[in-house]
């Protein structure tokens, strides 16, 4: 019984991190219909920035998050300007998605090799004084870094909810998502809205990278497995359904920790991917949406 509760607890903590990874992907996919497969590599980039700050100045990874956000936000702006914005000219949405997939594959190649050049291909992680520590609540151990991840994921979820529903930027984003042409006729600067949301999405990848580097480890080529997790969560939540990402991530985390009991830890990720394929086949609209809809924002 204790094992089960422990598994549920760690599943929730891991799931929060998964959700955090999926937020950036879901934003770009929901708003612009781009599939940014370089998301995993950008996550690793954020991890390296945090690692650098930690080793050069000794700043705690969780305190360096604002700096990482600024750095990866800029990276997101560059990514959008150089690679994604030319794709907006394509008339067909499906073509746009497919080409964004190919182009961001090129970005993976560039980023991964550049990172291997700068930070060497060795695996890096930040060992802070509290890294291995856990809090004991009623006999259930909760790792400190995992709890931080959960806290940040909830913070991001709430912040995104407020930004999208209460601010002008959010209104612009929703308008541009529903109908970019009509929005620009009404005076919404669609290009700028896209630019900022791409920056936010990549910054979220960077935040996820900080948590990954402080509780796991990063290598330059390691972005792909994180990317796949992000995509799985995004599809479970339903394409463009931002509010469902946190519950979807936690469901994935729970399924993974349950699968450790059934098939053993080495096959954990394979189980997640198989579930992903099954969901994709039978419920392509995700677990949380009743029927397929193009409006990404459910209030």
């Amino acid at each position, binding site marked *: 019984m204790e094992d089960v509760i422990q598994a549920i607890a760690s599943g929730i903590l891991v799931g929060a991190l998964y959700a955090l990874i999926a937020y950036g992907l879901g934003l770009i996919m929901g708003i612009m219909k781009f*599939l940014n497969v370089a998301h995993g590599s950008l996550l690793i980039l954020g991890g390296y920035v945090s690692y650098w700050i930690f080793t050069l100045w000794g700043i705690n990874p969780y305190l360096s998050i604002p700096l990482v956000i600024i750095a990866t936000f800029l990276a997101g702006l560059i990514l959008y300007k150089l*690679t994604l914005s*030319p*794709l907006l000219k394509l008339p067909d949405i*499906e073509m746009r*998605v*497919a*080409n964004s*997939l*190919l*182009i961001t*594959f*090129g*970005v*993976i*190649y*560039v980023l991964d*090799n*550049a990172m*291997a*050049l700068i930070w060497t291909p060795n695996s890096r992680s930040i060992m802070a004084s509290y890294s291995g520590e856990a809090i004991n609540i009623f006999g259930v151990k909760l790792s400190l870094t995992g709890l931080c991840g959960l806290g940040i994921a909830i913070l991001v979820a709430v912040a995104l909810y407020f930004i999208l529903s209460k601010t002008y930027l959010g209104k612009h984003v929703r308008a541009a998502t529903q109908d970019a042409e009509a929005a620009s006729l009404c005076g919404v600067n669609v290009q700028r809205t896209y630019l900022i949301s791409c920056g936010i999405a990549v910054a979220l990848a960077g935040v996820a990278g900080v948590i990954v580097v402080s509780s796991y480890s990063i290598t330059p080529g390691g972005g*792909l*497995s994180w990317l*796949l997790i992000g*995509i*799985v969560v995004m*599809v479970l939540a339903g394409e463009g359904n931002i509010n469902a990402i946190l519950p979807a991530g936690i469901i994935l985390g729970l399924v993974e920790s349950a699968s450790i009991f059934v098939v053993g830890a*080495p*096959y954990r*990720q*394979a189980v997640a*991917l*198989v579930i*992903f*394929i099954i969901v*994709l*086949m039978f419920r*392509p609209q995700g677990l949380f949406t009743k029927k397929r809809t193009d409006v990404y924002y459910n209030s």
Partner: protein
Amino acid sequence: MSTITANWKKLLPSGVVVAACIVLPMVMEIGTNILNLMVMLFIFIILSQSWNLMGGYTGQINLGLAAFFGCGVLATHFLWKAEVPIYLAVLAGGVATMVLAVIIGLPTLRLRGVYFAIGTLAFAEVLRIVVGNIFTTWVKMPGSYVATYSLLPRYYLGLVIALIAIAVVYFVTNSKLGLAMVAVRDDEEAAQVTGVNTFKYKVLTLLISAFLAGLGGGVYAFYRLSFYTMSQVFSPLWTFEPVMAVMIGGAGTLLGPIIGSFFLVILSEIFALKLGEAHLIIFGILFILVVLYFPYGLVGSVDQVRQVMARVSRSRLWKAIH
């Protein structure tokens, strides 16, 4: 066959190249380095032609090529180890890969557009994880295989299978299946409405593509006798690099993947000596530029340049100068 006789002038240069590839190693001593490079070039040509059938002609981005390649390697390696003649083992590797393609293809081909890409990538990753967990130790051939190792048979097997792959792609794309493939790529819904069973044709194309990729894996298994980790042949790089070769060379053309593979293998060798890892960054940037600005790749950009030149030579300014 009439098209072939009509185009004999076009076929002549490629015939010369093929003849040179066949004859040169027989009449003169060629360095091991070059032979190694050539074998890798042939493997890349096979893989990129295989991907081109799905990605270039049918418009379905298959990111599970590594699974097909790895399956071919795995099947061929263990059959050959069980003392099946290598040519049969390679063929069996191709057939085994077709079986895998049915398993992967039936669920994923129902997915549309980009989700087919992610689904196949997910399948390939599942296989990589499973294979990595099954074969945890060094997989290698017994010593007698190593003692009789020579590069020339690998070279000729690679050459023959690369030629087969090119021929298969040529004949498939010039058949009724080829028409259906292009119809699926250009507008799948319209093709369905006019009575093309798009799912059937997509499965057929995937089967052929998988067979070719499996043969490519067979060549690699014949070429590399030992694998430090078996999951390396399922690494996503075996998908990405052929995709890059096809896109840089020109998707949906017969020549594009060949030129792209040549570019990737030969130039990466030249660059690697001077720049180290940096050549991969250059390839990434080149790939992005090609996808953004030359959707038909290098082969297509030749046509684009020719059109621009023709326009210039027709213009008044040009005539005024001359």
